[in-house]
C-alpha cells in the first residue's frame, strides 16, 4: 500500500513502460500470486497491513540535476482516498487527490482537471490504501514473465493487468522478496507516457517495511522522492479529502 503513492508524481507527467523478457534457461518461474503474497509477508504481513486505516507521508521531491525541488505531503485513508501536495520552489503547488469517486489534479500553473476513464482508474488504484493485500481486486491478471537483473540483483518480473488500464510491470527481488522497480504507462490528458521507478532504502515503521527513496524517469527527466516520515493511523482533518473549490466549480459546469 505504502509504495503506490510514490508513483503519483509521475502520474502528473503520465506514463508506463513495458519490457520484454524471458525466463532464464531451465528456471521454473513461481506464480505471480506467490510472489505478490510473499511481498506482503516480507513487508510485515497481512495482520500488520490490516491494522492500518490511514497514513500521512512527508518527504522531499527533486528533479535530478535541475535544481528544482520541493516538499511533498501525502495523505491516504481507507479504502481509496488520497490527497497529495507538492510545493515546488519558484513554481508553486501541485495537488492531486481523490475522495474515492472523483479523481482530480490542481496546480497553479495548469489549473484544475477532473480525471476520467483510464486516468481516473489509475488514480483510484494508486489511492488504494491496502493495495498489496487487495491486488486481486485491482488487477484482473498477474503473470511472472521472466527473471531479470535490476541493479545487479536477480528479480522476478511480473506483468499485472489492471481491471482498467494498461499492464504494469513490477520487479521483485528474488532474495528479499521486496519490490524494487516498476514500469508503468499511466494514461493522462497529456498522453500515454512511459515512466520507470526504482525504490530502495526500505525501513520499518509500525511493523511495516516501506521504501524511503524512489527514483523516477519520465520523458528523459529524472526526479527523486525521499520520504522523511511516515505516520500510520494518524489524525487527518475531516475535510482533507474533500474536493477543492476549483474542482467543485469545474464539476458544476
Amino acid at each position, binding site marked *: 500500500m505504502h509504495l503506490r503513492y510514490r508513483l503519483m508524481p509521475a502520474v502528473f507527467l503520465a*506514463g508506463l513502460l513495458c519490457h520484454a523478457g524471458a525466463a532464464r534457461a531451465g528456471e521454473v518461474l513461481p506464480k505471480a500470486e506467490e510472489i505478490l503474497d510473499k511481498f506482503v509477508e516480507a513487508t510485515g504481513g497481512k495482520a500488520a497491513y490490516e491494522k492500518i486505516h490511514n497514513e500521512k507521508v512527508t518527504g522531499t521531491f527533486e*528533479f535530478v*540535476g*535541475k*535544481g*528544482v525541488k520541493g516538499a511533498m505531503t501525502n495523505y491516504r485513508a481507507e479504502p481509496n482516498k488520497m490527497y497529495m501536495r507538492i510545493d515546488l520552489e*519558484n*513554481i*508553486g503547488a501541485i495537488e492531486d487527490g481523490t475522495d474515492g469517486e472523483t479523481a482530480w489534479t490542481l*496546480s*497553479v*500553473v*495548469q*489549473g*484544475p*482537471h477532473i480525471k476520467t476513464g483510464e486516468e481516473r482508474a489509475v488514480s483510484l488504484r494508486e489511492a488504494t490504501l491496502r493495495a498489496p493485500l487487495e491486488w486481486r481486486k485491482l488487477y484482473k491478471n498477474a503473470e511472472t514473465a521472466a527473471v531479470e537483473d535490476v541493479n545487479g540483483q536477480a528479480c522476478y518480473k511480473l506483468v499485472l493487468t489492471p481491471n482498467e488500464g494498461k499492464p504494469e510491470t513490477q520487479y521483485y527481488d528474488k532474495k528479499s522478496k521486496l519490490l524494487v522497480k516498476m514500469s508503468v504507462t499511466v494514461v493522462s*490528458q*497529456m*498522453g*500515454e*507516457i*512511459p515512466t520507470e521507478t526504482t525504490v530502495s532504502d526500505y525501513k520499518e515503521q509500525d511493523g511495516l517495511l516501506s521504501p524511503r527513496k524512489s527514483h523516477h524517469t519520465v*520523458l*528523459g527527466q529524472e526526479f527523486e522522492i525521499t520520504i522523511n516520515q511516515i505516520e500510520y493511523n494518524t489524525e487527518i482533518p475531516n475535510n482533507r479529502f474533500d474536493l477543492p473549490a*476549483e474542482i467543485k*466549480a*469545474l464539476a458544476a*459546469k
Partner: protein
Amino acid sequence: MRSLRIVAVALVSSALACAQPPLTAEQKRLNLESFEFVWSTIRDQYWDPTFGGIDWTAVRDEFRPRIMRAATMAETRTLMSQMLERLGKSHFAIIPSDIYGDLDAREESGTASAGFDVRVIENHALVISVQEGSPAALQGVHSGWEILSIDGTDLAPRIEKVAGLYRNSTTRELYLARSVLGKLAGDEGSLAQIQFRDGSGARIVKEIQRIRPQGSLAKFGYLPPSYVWIKSRKIGGDAGYLAFNLFLDPARLMPEFGNAVHYFAECAGIIVDLRGNPGGLGIMAMGMAGWFIDKPDQRLGTMYTRQAPVKFALNPRPPVYHGALAILVDGCSASTSEVFAGGMKDLGRARIFGTRTAGAALPSAIDRLPNGDALQHALADYISEGGRTLEGVGVIPDVEVKLTRDALLAGHDPVLDAAIEWIHAQK
C-alpha cells in the same frame, strides 16, 4: 531563451568556410571522438527512432571515413554538418568553438538595460518603447528615435552583418534586435554613450545610465536568474491589456495573469501582448490558455519526444473569459510565445496581430564536443494543433501590422491600435 541562442549559433556555423591550418594527430583523434559523440547522440536522442526513413547506421559508415581523412577543422565541421543535414530539421548544427557565445554578448557584458526596448526595422535600430521614469526617459529619449552608435561603435555594419547572416531565416528580426540590445546591456550604473537620430532627423548624443531591468528576479532551478515582469491595464475604453516579458516565475505570474483576466471579465476583449517575449516554460502556455477556453479535451499542440508524444492539453479554468481575444506578436516572439499564439489561433480562439514570429519553437540542447566545438540538437518536435510545424515557419498573424518610425514618433502603436479596433468591431 537558450534555444534562441542555439538557433543563432546554428546559422552562424554554416557560414564557416575559411581556410584553416592542417590538423595535428591529436586534433584528428578528438575530431573522430567528436564525430562519434554527434552520431550516437542523434541515434539515442532524436525524437523519431526511424530518423524519417534514413538509415542512420549507413550515414555513420559513409561519413566516418571522410572525417578520418578531413585535413582541416573547417572540413571536419562541414562534414559533421552535412551529416546532420540528412535529418532535414532545424536546430541541429555544429557550433565552432570560436563562435559559440559571440551571440550572447548580453550575458558577458552584464544584465542592466538602457531603459528602452529596440527593434531593427528596415535595417534601422529604432527605440520602440521607453521605460517610464528611467534615466533614458528623463533625458527625453523617445520612441521612434534611431540608434546610430553605442559607445563609439557604429551600428550600421553590425546590423548589416547580422541581417546578412540571417537573411533567409525567420529568426532574423530576433537576432537583429538581440545584437543591438546586447550592445546596449552592461553593468548597472554604468554609462552608455548613445548617438541617436531624433524625430527631426538631427544627430544627438546622450549618456544614458544603465539600470536594473524591470520586474522581479526569478529563479528556476540552475538556470541563470532572470527579471520577469507582468503588466495589465484597461485600454481603449473597454479592452484589457496584458503583457509579460517571459514565461517564467509561474508562482507569481500565473496568479497575476489569472487575476487580470478575471478583472477584465466585463471587457469586450482582452489583448495579450507577446511582442519581444522569447518564451520560457511551455507548461505556462497551457495554463494561461485555460482561462480562455471552456471546452475540455482541447490542446495547443503536441510535442513529439523520443519517449512519447506529449499533448499540450488545456484545462478550462472557470470562470472562463468568453470575450474577444487578441494576441500581439512580432519577430522577437519565440518558443512558448509561439506555442501559445499558434495554438490559440489554431483553436479559433484568438486573432493574431503583428508580424510573423521567430519560428524558433523547439526545445534544444547544446553539448560540448571533445574537440572544443559544440553540438546543437533539438530534443523534440512540436506540431501546433492545426497540424502545422512552427519551427522555421513561425506563427503568421491574421492581421499583419508593422511598426514604423513615423508611427512610433507620433506616439502610436499601430499593432495595438489594430487589435483595439478589432475588439470594438466585435461588440
